[in-house]
């Protein structure tokens, strides 16, 4: 049921987001200006100077697009190796009260690539695999670093647009340090303490053992001495009764990681169930703030764009296009989940309660649909409900959001630079339609700019569809499936979309912890991140070089409703044309099978 409380929360959400855009945007302007002054200078300026000294860095020296990109790539490579080493050696490192062993090499590679690329795809279950040190240092490092990297790239691109006849785009190291120190760290400190107040844990003790109030028995597969399950003559697994008298309750330094995972649009859960876990997302209030925090920085970056290019209305038009796509998505997803699963209604389920499989009672239908839409509009990928168990159309929205390139507010930085690629394409297409040389904010858009923009878009398509097709016809792909029929194809398609789009959410039934899937998914993540960033940086470098053409009567206005509609149209057409055939075989056909027949898989 799409009830009034849902509408109130949705209105409040979009209203608060709009109100926060300018103040946070103003703060971003100061953070991304190396000489910018903030109220935190008193405390942080000495630390900033110390870091520059430790790095041997001259903060006033700017870099060209190639230098900036090389620094970014070397930093990411170093971070990847850092985390890979920690995961492989976690049994030798401190803060491992549960005594977890090292990760396998393919899983460690997958995880290190995943966190370096801001994806946070998780082939492992956090509380059953990772030590506190691996979580707090190995993974949290990238939650900060990859977020700052994304914002740095967005800033470099905006500088490229705003500057004229310039050779440089800023200094990567300065952007990296300033974003972490002045933006992410102080916000997270307050945010994490708020999460603790709501019930999120932050401790270093071993897992607790509770004596159950009422013991009960469960059926579990009988295992022989070697740990393999025993089968009877007919091939059925033999089950034995096990009496449960205690419950092991996982603990750890969770809140500090949960805060940055949302704010930095990383999404990697401390616990396997991510933000569905009561320790990670304890109350509906914490949930609302977590969803808002995903969009906070991406939304503010549109204001930063408008401010830096001297056309605030352009920034708001980009914001408006994003808001439109967001609202359309959330309403479809909410509606589909509220209607629920007709098969279950037929069995005698209360029709008003909607599709509650994989959802938490405290969040209900609306907050699960809102979270799913926002986490995939952005490249966050945290989940507070299991997308795999959504209705076909409810699950189509997250999948399509990722495939559109996560440009609806998007990941921190990544959303803005992704959307600006679409802006360039929109300007180009409109220019073709009216027969004029395309211009964007006084810069002529020429063959080189269009080529690198198209390249960025194409790389995503090739990686998503190529890997998904390969997986769908290979034994190693099929072997991981939890569902069969069209839903099985959706699981594979979602996995490679999520990896390439650096989202990290999953149709989590897919058992991806196998060498083939771990490796191909890791490659998709690296391709989706860095082969997108490189063309973006090339575009930034090329735009910076150009002269500004003063506005004339033939200039195409990039503010106003016409441009908003054209931009939304470009995003949808590129996305729809590319992915519609694959989606038709997955969620779309599943929807018609579910509503039009009794066929099950």
């Amino acid at each position, binding site marked *: 049921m799409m009830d009034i*409380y849902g509408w109130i929360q949705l209105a409040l959400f979009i209203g608060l987001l709009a109100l926060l855009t300018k103040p946070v945007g103003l703060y971003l302007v100061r953070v991304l200006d190396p000489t910018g002054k903030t109220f935190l200078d008193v405390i942080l300026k000495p630390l900033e100077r110390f*870091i520059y000294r430790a*790095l*041997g*860095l001259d903060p006033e020296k700017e870099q060209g697009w190639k230098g900036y990109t090389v*620094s970014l790539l*070397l*930093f990411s*490579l170093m971070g990847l190796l850092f985390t890979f080493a920690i995961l492989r050696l976690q049994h030798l490192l401190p803060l491992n009260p549960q005594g977890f062993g090292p990760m396998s090499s393919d899983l460690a590679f997958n995880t290190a690539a995943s966190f370096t690329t801001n994806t946070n795809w998780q082939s492992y279950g956090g*509380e059953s695999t990772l030590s506190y040190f691996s979580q707090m240092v190995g993974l*949290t*490092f990238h939650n900060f*670093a990859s977020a700052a990297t994304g914002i740095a790239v967005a800033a470099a691109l905006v500088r490229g647009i705003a500057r004229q006849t310039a050779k440089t785009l800023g200094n990567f190291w300065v952007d990296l340090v300033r974003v*972490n120190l002045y933006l992410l*760290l102080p916000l*997270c400190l307050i945010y*994490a*303490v708020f999460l603790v107040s709501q*019930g999120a*844990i*932050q*401790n270093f003790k071993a897992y*607790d053992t509770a004596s159950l*109030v*009422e013991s009960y028995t*469960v059926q*579990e597969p009988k295992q022989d001495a070697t740990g393999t399950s025993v089968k009877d003559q007919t091939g059925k697994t033999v089950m034995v009764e096990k009496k449960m008298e205690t*419950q092991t*309750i996982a*603990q750890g330094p969770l*809140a*500090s990681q949960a*805060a940055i995972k949302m704010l930095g649009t990383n999404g990697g859960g401390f616990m*396997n*169930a991510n933000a*569905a*876990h*009561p*320790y990670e997302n*304890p109350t*509906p209030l914490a949930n609302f703030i977590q969803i808002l925090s995903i969009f906070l920085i991406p939304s503010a970056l549109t204001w930063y764009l408008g401010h830096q290019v001297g056309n605030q209305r352009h920034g708001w038009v980009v914001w408006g296009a994003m808001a439109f796509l967001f609202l359309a998505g959330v309403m479809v997803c909410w509606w589909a989940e509220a209607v629920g699963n007709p*098969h*279950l209604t037929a*069995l*005698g*389920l209360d029709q008003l309660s909607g599709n509650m*499989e*994989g959802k938490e*009672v*405290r969040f*209900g239908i609306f907050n699960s649909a809102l979270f799913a839409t926002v986490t995939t509009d952005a490249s966050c990928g945290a989940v507070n*409900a299991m997308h795999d*168990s959504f209705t076909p159309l409810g699950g189509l929205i997250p999948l399509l959001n990722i495939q559109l390139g996560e440009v609806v507010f998007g990941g921190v930085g990544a959303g803005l630079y992704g959307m600006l690629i679409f802006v360039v394409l929109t300007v180009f297409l409109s220019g073709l339609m009216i027969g004029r040389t395309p211009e964007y904010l006084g810069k002529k858009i020429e063959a080189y700019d269009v080529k690198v923009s198209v390249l960025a878009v194409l790389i995503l398509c090739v990686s998503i569809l190529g890997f998904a097709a390969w997986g769908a016809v290979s034994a190693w792909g099929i072997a991981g499936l939890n*569902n069969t029929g069209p839903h099985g194809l*959706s699981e594979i398609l979602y996995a490679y979309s999520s990896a390439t789009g650096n989202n990290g959410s999953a*149709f989590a*039934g897919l058992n991806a912890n196998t060498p083939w899937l771990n490796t191909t998914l890791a490659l998709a993540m690296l391709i989706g991140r860095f082969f997108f960033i490189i063309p973006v940086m090339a575009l930034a470098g090329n735009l910076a070089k150009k002269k500004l053409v003063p506005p004339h009567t033939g200039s195409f206005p990039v503010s106003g409703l016409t441009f908003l509609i054209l931009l939304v149209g470009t995003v949808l057409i590129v996305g729809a044309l590319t992915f519609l055939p694959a989606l038709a075989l997955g969620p779309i056909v*599943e929807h018609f099978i579910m509503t039009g027949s009794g*066929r*099950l898989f």
Partner: protein
Amino acid sequence: MKTSEYLKELRMALASVIVLAVILCGAYPLAVWGIGQALFPNQANGTLIQLRGKTVGSSLIAQGFKGAAYFHPRPSAAGQGYDSSNSGGSNLGPTSQKLIDSVKERIAVYRLENNLTPEFPVPADAVTSSGSGLDPHISVQNARLQAPRVAKVRNMSQETLRQKIDIHTEGRDLGMFGEPRVNVLNLNLELDSGR
């Protein structure tokens, strides 16, 4: 770029990883830990419930009550069920045979246990597994349907039990966020304490 420049950049990459790790992965989580333990020690340590010197669970983590004298939580797909070191959902899709079969069975059991007619619509949360497998709550409707069974076994009046449900019903946060819900473990402990 010359080789020496690459080496300089590489050194900066290494130094920045180390310096940032010390601040962001050392000082920051420790600060949250210090503040959390000082201001909200109960929450920071897992909202655990102690009874007669023993930890009997956490208010935020479901336990697998099955007896007629207790309110039952939602079905769980975490490990073998309610395994708080192995959280997760069933991840079964809407056209999964396994999903439909298990819900069918759970509906039959729920109606039987709570003495409902075969046509009575069952609240979805009672027969579907939660996302975490540890959902500590059930819907108010679900709790009220279970109340007569619990009241009968415990020889309590419906009215007293209804009051106890109300005590453990959490409304929408700030009157608007999320859904109203009943905390199962807290409610069951209250029932035991009144015995």
